[in-house]
């Protein structure tokens, strides 16, 4: 890897690639060379299943400002959901 800036966490969710949904249990977050975005580096998100093989992947590539904006948006939404009592018994 070029930057070696990568973290992998366990998650519980479902991802969609094309027209199919599949279970995802791993999220990989890296700041490294993207495959598609015309940037030297990007924030790369990969949602995968350990049993799904390399092809079972939902991939997103974001520029740095979009990545930061996404983090803020997620935190804002989760804060609102918590305030609204929606997170009780949600896990």
């Amino acid at each position: 890897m070029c930057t070696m800036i990568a973290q992998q966490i366990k998650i519980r969710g479902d991802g969609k690639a094309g027209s199919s949904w599949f279970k995802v249990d791993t999220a990989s977050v890296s700041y490294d060379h993207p495959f598609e975005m015309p940037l030297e580096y990007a924030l790369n998100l990969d949602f995968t299943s350990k049993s799904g093989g390399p092809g079972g992947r939902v991939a997103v590539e974001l520029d740095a400002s979009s990545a930061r904006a996404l983090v803020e948006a997620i935190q804002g939404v989760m804060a609102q959901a918590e305030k609204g009592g929606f997170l009780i018994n949600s896990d």
Partner: protein
Amino acid sequence: MYTTDQYEGMLAETVILPGNHADLINAYFARPLGAGPFPGMVLVHHMPGWDEWYRETTRKFAAYGYVTLCPNLYFREGHGTPEDVAAQVRGEGGVADDQVVGDVSAALEMLLALPYVNGKVGLFGTCSGGRHAYLCACRIPQVAALVDCWGGRVTQTSEELTPKQPVAPADYSADLSCPVLGIFGNEDKSPTPEQVNQLEQVLKQYGKEYEFHRYDGAGHGFFYHNRPNYRQEQAVDGWSKVFSFLDKHLKGS
């Protein structure tokens, strides 16, 4: 220099190679037709994976007269598109340096065993492949020449080391036993010009034979015609430097 009255022929195909620990991995192989003898090259692919650019480059080296082998360093991760496989490797923090050295060593031995190879095999790598190629050139004594294209993290700090990358390649430089060609863009962020300076100092410290070419107006990956960092003028000159260097050190007696 090719002229239009010359014959040119090539064989190019996917092969199977017993790599590190004799694991069977696949590799892309391309050779000029004929009895040779020809020099050999092992290509050490980059972070984006064992991809179309590396298959094209394997054929390019064969067209220039080199028996060339590019092992799939990500074979053990499973199969899919090169992007999907590389993304999986990226998420898991890369592949282990020791495994890469084993795979590249096996590729080198395979080439040296071929009856149409002249006994001289070099390494070429770009990006993380440049870093791996430098590491392999230090740890595999049979390497006859090294081309390091913008390999980042060759001079790693202790904070940058990981279980898969436990030693900075530059720390093995005393054992480097072949000449080195370095190709770098002065706008690159990994390696930065300062990091290239550090590597140059290490090579000077150990009295190693090297030549560096450092390009203004170019950043990381400026040979990649399919990426926005491609720089036509610098890439054409860089490739010329690559083949001049390899022809000098690997062709002839």
